[in-house]
């Protein structure tokens, strides 16, 4: 007997929307079982995770703050994945963006500056993320190196570079030897949108990127090029599209978006450079991109949901004394079920018995 995956002839649009919903429900069930095994009340735990963050305005703001870098990155990754470019290194591109943007904040520290500092930080972060994203793209197009491996490995390069900088040349001279940079000046911080709370201008930037991404992917020749290269590479060549140039473009673009995310994390959430700046936004964005069907609007919805689990996870740490790793396990469940549901949506399982010959 053997199990065969058979491609389905036809997949309805309804199933494509239903599949992530089923995945979320299965994640909740698996999570409840996990909490029960850990000796916690499953319902209380789930409500801490998924409902408690929605009960006050401050927490809701926090959801948007956490969703902003995730969604920005996920939109860029969607372009990569749609065109068959497997950029797994957004976390590194985020860190490199934070380093470039942080550099601007540090050199303008204590000297006369102005409101131009934050926009320049964003531009520097875009540049840093884009250049770092281009490394695996060039390795792929010039030497045929597998971009999954190279982009993933470069995450460690960026993280260790940041670690060295904040322990060495960029360490705050008045920081009691803590491995961190100076606190950014107000000009280097992201503009707040509300009096109380941390909602900042990055949320608006996220919405602009989502809308721009949806328009580009749905309406423009460039969006058609991205999808055609991923769907049928030979047809893309027949259409006169240069797949190597597109690989460079989407890596640079997704790197730039990750770079912006990095600047926003350090200037809106932390206010300085530290050895570790991201709780894995660049990896979470991979889940979000797939959960959102590689569609910018979908990424927004999925990103807000994942941000909810981040905030809920913090609450669970405080109120239930659950380790942060549980949040990671949750996200792992979610990715697993999304991919499983997608597989079953596209394929059917057939069990084949060996016949007596």
């Amino acid at each position: 007997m053997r199990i065969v995956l058979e491609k389905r002839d036809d997949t309805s649009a309804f199933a494509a929307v239903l599949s992530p919903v089923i995945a979320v429900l299965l994640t909740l069930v698996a999570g409840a079982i996990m909490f029960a095994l850990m000796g916690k009340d499953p319902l209380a735990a789930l409500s801490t995770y998924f409902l408690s963050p929605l009960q006050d305005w401050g927490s809701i703001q926090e959801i948007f703050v956490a969703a902003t870098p995730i969604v920005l990155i996920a939109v860029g990754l969607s372009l990569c994945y749609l065109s068959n470019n497997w950029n797994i290194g957004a976390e590194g591109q985020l860190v490199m963006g934070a380093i470039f943007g942080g550099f601007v904040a540090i050199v303008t520290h204590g000297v006369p500056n102005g409101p131009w500092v934050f926009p320049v930080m964003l531009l520097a972060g875009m540049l840093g993320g884009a250049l770092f994203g281009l490394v695996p793209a060039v390795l792929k197009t010039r030497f045929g190196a597998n971009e999954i491996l190279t982009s993933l490995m470069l995450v460690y390069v960026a993280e260790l570079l940041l670690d060295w900088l904040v322990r060495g040349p960029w360490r705050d001279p008045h920081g009691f030897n803590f491995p961190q940079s100076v606190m950014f000046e107000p000009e280097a911080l992201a503009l707040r949108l509300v009096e109380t709370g941390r909602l900042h201008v990055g949320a608006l930037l996220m919405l602009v990127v989502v809308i721009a991404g949806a328009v580009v992917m749905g309406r423009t020749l460039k969006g058609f090029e991205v999808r055609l290269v991923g769907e049928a590479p030979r047809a893309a060549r027949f259409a006169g599209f240069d797949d190597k140039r597109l690989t460079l473009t989407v890596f640079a673009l997704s790197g730039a978006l990750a770079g912006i995310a990095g600047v926003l994390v350090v200037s809106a959430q932390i206010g300085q450079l530290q050895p570790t700046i991201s709780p894995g936004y660049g990896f979470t964005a991979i889940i979000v991109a797939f959960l959102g069907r590689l569609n910018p609007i979908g990424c927004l919805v999925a990103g807000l949901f994942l941000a909810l689990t981040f905030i809920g996870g913090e609450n669970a740490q405080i109120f239930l004394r659950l380790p942060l790793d549980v949040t990671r396990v949750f996200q792992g469940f979610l990715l697993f079920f999304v991919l499983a549901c997608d597989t079953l949506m596209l394929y059917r399982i057939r069990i084949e018995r060996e016949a007596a010959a």
Partner: protein
Amino acid sequence: MADVPLIEARAVVKRFGSLIANDHVDLDVAAGEIHALLGENGAGKSTLVKMLYGLMQPNEGTIAWRGKPVTLANPRAARALGIGMVFQHFSLFENLTVAENIALALDAAPSHERIEQVSRAYGLPLEPRRPVWALSVGERQRVEIIRCLLQDPKLLILDEPTSVLTPQEAEGLFATLETLKMEGRSVLYISHKLEEVKRLCDRATILRHGKRIATCDPKRESAASMARMMVGDDVAAVRLVEHDASGPVRLALVDADHMPDDPHGTSLKSVSLEVRAGEILGIAGVAGNGQDELFAVLSGERLCDRAENVVIDGVPVGRETINARRKRGTAFVPEERLGHAAAPRFRLSVNALVSGHATNGFVRRGFIDRAKALDWVDRVTKRFDVRKGARDPEAKALSGGNLQKFVVGREILRNPSILVVAQPTWGVDAGAATLIRQALVDLARRGSAVLVISQDLDELLEISDRIAVMYHGTMSMPQPVRGLSRETIGLMMAGARLGAAA
């Protein structure tokens, strides 16, 4: 033949969703008989033999082997009974040797001596140590056949075996099949080439739209009468009119050399050709002799070393992209419908963009004008009789013939001054093939230069003004079609040089 048939299908039904691929089909093959299975593409031939070989299960009806009902759950069960099959598309590993490929399919690996002995005995000589990538298509088919014969089959099923062979190679295969028949083995022979069926086969079963139309003695039928049974009514012939094919040269290839990216591809060696306004130039040749590479350098999917290698209307364009060449009035139709000419999971209106985004005004300032693209689909549909279930379905939802009408029509509707088309009617039913050939002929009569790359000799003889042959990456001198025989082209396809003879 009063004996019990070797294999018999009784009223088998196979459904795929709402489509009935086989509708109560009967077929019997006697021992020692060469039996033809005839029908157009989509008539249900492949479905029927896949059930006989255990690849699919019938929904209704029975299959009997020597009078006893059997269940063929998988090909292994079919092979155990003594059924062997050679597919149209080979299942060989290019980087393995002949002997290794044979050993992979069998339970016990035969010795090199045994392979050589069997292959010689059946007139299909093979060198067991050669890697498959170095073999011609005809030799690869031999590997498949020998692999079956080593299992001592009682019934050998061949799916369109001569479609990849030169006429001379086909003769060799026919001799082998006669030998098998003398040994008392049976052959089920799928084809749509009526002349060879008449010569070779004892009986023929004809399918149309999933139903068995008749079982006849092909030697007593005419090719036309069998064609009528296959198609249902008389096939319209392509209308040819007297015309002038001596206009100015519109498309030329000059001493083009090309190394393919694919290590198993064929290099072009100093290939030259000229296509004149009003003319159809046919390029014949067995698959894999450089046709793919020829298409790639003509279209600009691969750039040439020098601009002078490709000339369009007197302008050197060898370094121009495919879209720059399209803007000069050239259009291209590649061989593969799905994956090359069209993206399978995109709608037709999106697939209209694949070749038309640079030339047809579908894109303004980077934005796609969907209404315009959809309107183009409607016009192609109307002009080329594309039959589809919805106004704008995904490309993969169309049948092969209808998608081919779409991808050819998409280009011809632009009225290109130069058209390069590869395998215009490959795997297309007779009605669609006639429509496409007529459209090519009409385009040339309006003064365009048309280059047709095809493995279908009958097609080239029907519509071309001149024919050249590709062999191992070289191009022969084109010969006027008048006075050119199949045998001459066959010799050229096998590598013979035609110098002063012409």
